[in-house]
């Protein structure tokens, strides 16, 4: 157990350390401009100098991510259920969903601003739009992959659609749902940043843009680092939830 914790923290750190060292050497040896790619030490100093600022801006971004993710799950799963429960819905909805997915969100941001205003809503809408698709696709795939034996058991008991879904298909699809959720949660980070680019006065995305426009490479990269840490934290939370909701699964990985 203790060796487990040791394991679980030492290797990620080693991996990141190796990258940081390589990065530092690269910037030093090739004398890369700080505008192009600041070195890890530059970024570190930018982080400590602007710590309170970064922390302050991390909060709204974090909120946008969490709520956007909740929306993606809350809307994505019912959509997946609809898709997998009826061929007609599947055929009718899928093209629309794909269209929504493959359109660059930056390009439709203005109309989202018009519909959802300048507040949190528009950022949530974008975070949702960016994140919902993996949940829909993975969940729908999972629902369709339910072992036929279990489905027939439920059918033989005349389970209702809802019962079949909630008691058989959903638990059976959980590995898929969580795979989708893991992808989605990292995408919400990107979605939140896009939302902040488009119209916001706060958030890490905003800070990133400001720093970038001032050619303040170290601060911009500090914001990027925070964003990736945010991504890792959110991913970790989903992975934890997976363990919690799937206690029967022996987690070989993660």
């Amino acid at each position, binding site marked *: 157990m203790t060796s487990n914790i040791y394991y679980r923290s030492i290797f990620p750190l080693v991996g990141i350390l190796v990258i940081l060292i390589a990065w530092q050497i690269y910037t030093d040896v090739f004398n890369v*401009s700080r505008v*192009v790619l600041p070195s890890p030490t530059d970024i570190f100093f930018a982080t400590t100098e602007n710590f309170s600022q970064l922390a302050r801006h991390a909060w709204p971004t974090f909120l946008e991510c969490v709520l956007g993710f909740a929306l993606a799950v809350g809307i994505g799963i019912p959509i997946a259920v609809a898709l997998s429960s009826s061929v007609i819905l599947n055929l009718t909805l899928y093209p629309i969903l794909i269209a929504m997915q493959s359109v660059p969100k930056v390009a439709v941001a203005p109309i989202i601003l*018009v519909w959802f*205003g300048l507040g949190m809503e528009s950022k949530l809408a974008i975070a949702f739009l960016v994140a919902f698709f993996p949940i829909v696709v993975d969940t729908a795939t999972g629902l369709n992959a339910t072992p036929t034996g279990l489905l027939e058991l439920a059918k033989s008991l005349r389970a209702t659609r809802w019962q079949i879904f909630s008691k058989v298909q959903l638990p059976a699809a959980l590995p898929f749902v969580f795979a989708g959720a893991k992808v989605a949660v990292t995408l919400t980070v990107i979605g939140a940043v896009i939302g902040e680019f*488009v119209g916001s*006065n706060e958030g890490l995305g905003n800070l990133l843009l400001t720093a970038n426009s001032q050619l303040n490479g170290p*601060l911009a990269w500090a914001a990027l680092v925070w964003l990736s840490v945010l991504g890792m934290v959110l991913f970790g939370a989903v992975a934890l939830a997976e363990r919690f909701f799937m206690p029967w699964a022996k987690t070989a990985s993660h």
Partner: protein
Amino acid sequence: ADELKPVVFSLDFIPLGRHAPWYAAVEEGFFAEEGLDVTIIPSQGTAQVMQAIASGTAQFGFVDLPGVVLAQAGGTDIEMISVNYQKSPYAIFSLANGGDVQDIAQIEGLSLGSGAGSITPKVIGGFMSQNGLSASSLEIVNVAPPARASALLSGQVPAIEFFVMAKPGLEKAAKEAGTELRTFLLADNGLELYSNGIGALGSYLDENPDVAEGFVRAAMRGWKFTLDNPEKAADHIVKNVDGLDHDVVLAEIEVVRNLAVTDDVKEHGLGWFSPEKMKTGVEFVIDNVGVDGTAPEAGSIYRSEFLPEPAILP
């Protein structure tokens, strides 16, 4: 006037040092004195300001003349009611050990990092034609704004096009790279083209002339305050916008001063514009940028009745 009227003002970009005057007007209470509660929102370039105004998300915006011409051709009735950048901010940057662009003749045959479909290359092209150079010799390499400085500094392109406000930052980066920055401001080399000012929907102006008048007056006072007290103005914006560097803001204010304060302005006041120059500007845009749809009349582009009386001199 404890009941302030809420008004949204959209910048042309995210808030940077060049936008200090607007924040000064808010922080110094100039807007409030006109009975306005102004919210400043960022945007991502011309298209978004226009969309914000056209959709009513913002009542006023910091729009540029070419953008207004295109927007009107696209079926909106956005009009300009002040001109703050009397000179266009279009600039060509290069490094002393790279493109080293110091003279207009050097633009010919230049490979220039610019935005995809951005109107700037077309403006430069028009400017070249005016000066007897071959516009088609200009090679445009599409580099997104966030990547443009990197492309220049890493030598991917010999020159880039940017708003002149990028000068302080680029200068610093160039120095760090052991070379020197060359700035070629088109407006200082003969380009006569109004650029950004306050814009709003014609229909809105018809219904809210008082608001427009108050807004412009307060904004011009903000400009004057900023030009007179750059340090204080910088404080105001830095307080409002995280990530801004005080020194960079100050440097940008100085760059903007060069764009905003011309002989015309010294005579007629901040925000003023001449109908003739507007007309040549509109024609320049129609000839060189080209419009999709029906080209607007020069006269429909602007209204001067909201400029402050008496004029606010710098």
